[in-house]
């Protein structure tokens, strides 16, 4: 028999989730003291670490300085041990460069850069373990790190990968699903205003299905935002209790 059955007749996916269910979230903020902000996020088996420095003065070429806003510098990398086969190059390959660019675009849309003219914000994200939805986990982790750094944002940026199987959109794809011939779409959303910060898809999908898929992605992103909000609130509480004593 060829292939995996991605969605059973009973409506369960390979790992037992239903179509709209997200994977289990586990997050911690402020994992490193030296950096200005940091966060660790697990979405199922995909684990990411995000670190934020800044805002600080622009380093390197002065030509990059923007007089009306801060520049955002992103770097995405994958740990050599993050996949089933050991990776040769942790960063700098085309895929990582592209991903860095995507992250940069996403956060330029979300961070209130006009508050910090002539400065720079660095966001470094590393995938420690990869099990699908790398981009979205990075965005979510970076959001937490930016918040941890105390940099004002318009809203949480929440991202989610969705796929389309048997006329049904599946939320938060895992690796097996991404590889199983699903057309997947990644979407980063500012949930309160409903603005889309980034929408990316390389697969073929019929135009008629696009709307339904985006709709599903937005719902999923809103779900993510709730979880992130909880994480932030919990972190605040933990951080504030010792100081109150």
């Amino acid at each position, binding site marked *: *028999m060829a292939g995996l*059955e991605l969605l*059973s*007749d*009973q409506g*369960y996916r*390979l*790992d*037992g*989730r239903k179509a709209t269910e997200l*994977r*289990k979230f586990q997050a911690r903020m402020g994992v490193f003291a030296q950096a200005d902000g940091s966060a660790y996020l697990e979405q*199922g*088996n995909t684990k990411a670490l995000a670190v934020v420095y800044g805002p600080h003065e622009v380093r390197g070429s002065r030509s990059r300085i923007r007089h009306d806003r801060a520049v955002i510098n992103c770097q995405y990398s994958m740990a050599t041990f993050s996949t*089933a*086969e050991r990776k040769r190059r942790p960063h700098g390959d085309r895929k990582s460069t592209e991903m860095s660019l995507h992250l940069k675009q996403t956060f330029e849309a979300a961070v209130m850069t006009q508050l910090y003219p002539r400065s720079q914000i660095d966001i470094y994200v590393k995938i420690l373990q990869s*099990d699908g939805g790398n981009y979205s986990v990075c965005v979510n982790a970076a959001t937490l790190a930016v918040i941890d750094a105390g940099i004002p944002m318009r809203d949480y940026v929440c991202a989610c990968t969705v796929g389309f199987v048997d*006329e049904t959109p599946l939320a938060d794809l*895992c690796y*097996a699903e991404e590889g199983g011939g699903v057309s997947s779409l990644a979407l980063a959303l500012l949930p309160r205003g409903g603005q889309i910060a980034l929408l990316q898809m390389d697969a*073929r999908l*019929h135009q*008629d299905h696009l709307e339904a898929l985006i709709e599903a992605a937005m719902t999923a992103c809103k779900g993510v935002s709730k979880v992130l909000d909880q994480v932030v609130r919990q972190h605040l509480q933990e951080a504030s209790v010792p100081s109150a004593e």
Partner: protein
Amino acid sequence: MLKSKTFVKKTRSGGVMKIVREHYLRDDIWCGSEVCTECKQESTALQRDPCMESNLCSYPHYVIPDTNVVLHQIDVLEDQVIRNVIILQTVLAEVRHRSAPIYKRLKDIVHEKEKNFYTFTNEHHRETFIEREPGESANDRNDRAIRVAAKWYSEHLKKSESDTDPLKVVLLTNDQGNKQKAEESGLLVYKCEEYIKSLIGNPELVDRLALSNDDKNDITSSKVLFPEHLPLSRIQAGLKNGTFLQGTFRASRDNYLEATVFVQGEGEESTEVLIQGLQNLNRSVYQDVVAVQLLPRDQWVAPSSVVLQDEGAAKDDNEEEGEEEKELRVSAAEAARKPTGRVVGIIKRNWRPFCGMLNASIIKESTRHLFTPADRRIPRIRIETRQADALAGQRIMVAIDGWPKHSRYPNGHFVRTLGSAGDKETEQQVLLLEHDVPHQAFSQAVLSFLPTMPWEITPEVMVNREDLRSLTVCSVDPPGCTDIDDALHCRELDNGNLEVGVHIADVSHFIRPGNAMDKEAANRGTTVYLCGKRIDMVPELLSSNLCSLRSNVERLAFSCIWEINHEAEILKTRFTKSVIKSKASLTYAEAQMRIDDTTQTDDITKNLRGLNKLAKILKKHRILKGALTLSSLEVRFHIDSETHDPIDLQTKELMETNSMVEEFMLLANISVAQKIFDEFPDCAMLRKHPAPPPSNYDILLKAAKSKAVEIHTDSAKALADSLDVARVDGFPYFNTLLRILATRCMMQAVYFCSGMDSDFHHYGLASPIYTHFTSPIRRYADIIVHRLLAVAIAADKTYPDLMDKQKQSALSNNLNYRHKMSQYAQRASVAFHTQLFFKSRGILNEEGFVLFVRKNAIIVLIPKFGLEGTVFFDSKNKAAPNVVFDEEGPSLTVEQHIFHMFDRVTVTISLDASNIQHQKIRMSLIEPVIPGVSVSAPEVEPLAKKPRLDR
């Protein structure tokens, strides 16, 4: 909603790779039983009162089968008696992995509501999930998972039931070890055979049980008859290094000890390997994919022309067999040796249930019997049944279970009975099954996609749709037609030109891509018309009602509208979805009458006259371009209204109106083909008719030459022209005969996907491009074309499969296959009805023409009945006359008389029913009189055969 999680680690070969997957366990998976009060399920599949009565389990219970039970006993599970079954996810996954066809059947059962099957997702249930223990094999783990789930069910049901006796679950397994372990953990467990046998009031179910391994041993002696099949790994290695060849096994129809294996070579070349002798055939069955090894060149043989039927009902031992084989080898001529080989292994079995009849064993009490399939290429099958008496004289279906190496025949089990042999209904079933025509009633899943009645046209439907209800549209069809898929209109425009519209039922509006109804229709491919019966491609509500363009009701249509001038030149073409209201449904004869009757001047008649005038011009144009008019005799039965027996035979007549409708359908098809090809050069579904290779025409040329007529075959046009002038004085039927012969020279027209082929030409119609658009009710290709056209004019949405040329190509292959099979089935049905007719008419003397001349026979066509039959000149019990065959003529000299093609002969026709499974029409010669060969005119010997028919 609680989610806990564990990890499942898997390793996969091809470089060991560790795959880590999440596995969520849930506590919101319900048990699916009506009695349960704990589970918050919305719908339940399992009934409160499961009504399977069994001696073993007198209490109400649900059944849980394990994987092997499902795999082997799917025939039993499909029975209506078996209900309230829990299919575990573990079982489902294993079945999916092991056998795709059984998986599909299982899924069909699960979808059927009345069967009350429930799929329990035990692998994701918090309480039934188990992890594989160290040292435990995957199979053992699955068995344990099944036991755990069964245990959970029995406890779960105990909890929820308070008042009456609690529901129990019964685990069915054939595995000894599994059964024992289940008993230890306190489960109710039975072997499948035990349980089925205990079911009260269903003795016939027992026969459906497939034989399990331990039963097989006692059925046969331990003598090893066949060489062992090689394991797949060695076959693969052999195929790679070229010692073995892979091919499809094709048994010979006439000789059970001989077969060929068709080896598909690279590119176009393919070879046939001859296999001779039981040992070499090595348990292959027709259509299996096998691996063969070529024998050394000195052992090669020529195919024998001996006819050998396996008569071995009594002789089960193989001594005599050896002699038959020897005889075979001796008869092989030295010259014409062919590559010969032996089967070393089976790569893929292609067993299906076979139709046939039981040869009851001589010993009356015996439960083991041989079964003779209707298809002579299938070996006899040994089955075990207790109802041999009841099954004698019945057509039954049998499935093969296996063929052990010490058994002369394969072992099988009874599937179901079709009815008594010779019965019309039964024979119809048999020919449908043997031609692989899907003819079951539509499943619930399919019917659920039908529109709800009463159906009416809503404003949403009118979006992108033109309102053509005011036009005077009418349909012209054969009498008794209920699936009307085309209607026409014609009116004069203000500028003097004519507007002609062809309106085709908008089936694609009702059948949406990808749903169960669509899949079923795609599988069926075509509606099959048998004599007195129609096997629909789409459910009747659509085919005979909602899609049928009946008169005076509003129907959705897909219209193709041309502006045409009076010289029948097309000025403008447009396509639109529309709503029409047909003003009249006419038959060809009625339409013809209206046209001919000059007193009638109503709109419809004017319409028809306009159409008829244009059609004539169109036809002229087409023939000028070189379209062929071929001929084949089609017969029509007059069926008795009460007994439904054929009472008269008549060849179909063609009227002007037939060709009128046909002309516009062709025009529509060509216009649509052009449009969809322009729009989708890669994935248009088209139809082509390749030009036949010149060698095909040999027989036609020779035949024409013998009557001093010249036929040119360099092009379709040359052929058409020369056929038109081919006449012989005093022989008016000659031209028709020639056209019949020309038809036989043609290739099959096929559907194909435009992206996969470069030659689109339709030879017969002399059109550079062609497709089928006009009969979506009865052909699936038309539905696809409708969808393509709808997308092209932006009236409908597209979907991924429509644009995928690989999938389109696979679909057209299926459609071509179904189309071919349906034609065979139609012919078989006509043949059967012809037999019935001659059975009722007794013996007839008729005049006919020699159509072909063969080595030992002539083939005679009786124009009156459109019937073809063979007159043999050598028969078993008579001394063969002196027969000389001349291939050049072609002619056959029998004693003194020389037979040429097209000779006029008189034959007597009777029914030969000596073999009840293969009744056939027998013809014997009356005129010309050849002593010792022809028979005298009055009915003599065939009468003796008649009484045996009526038993």
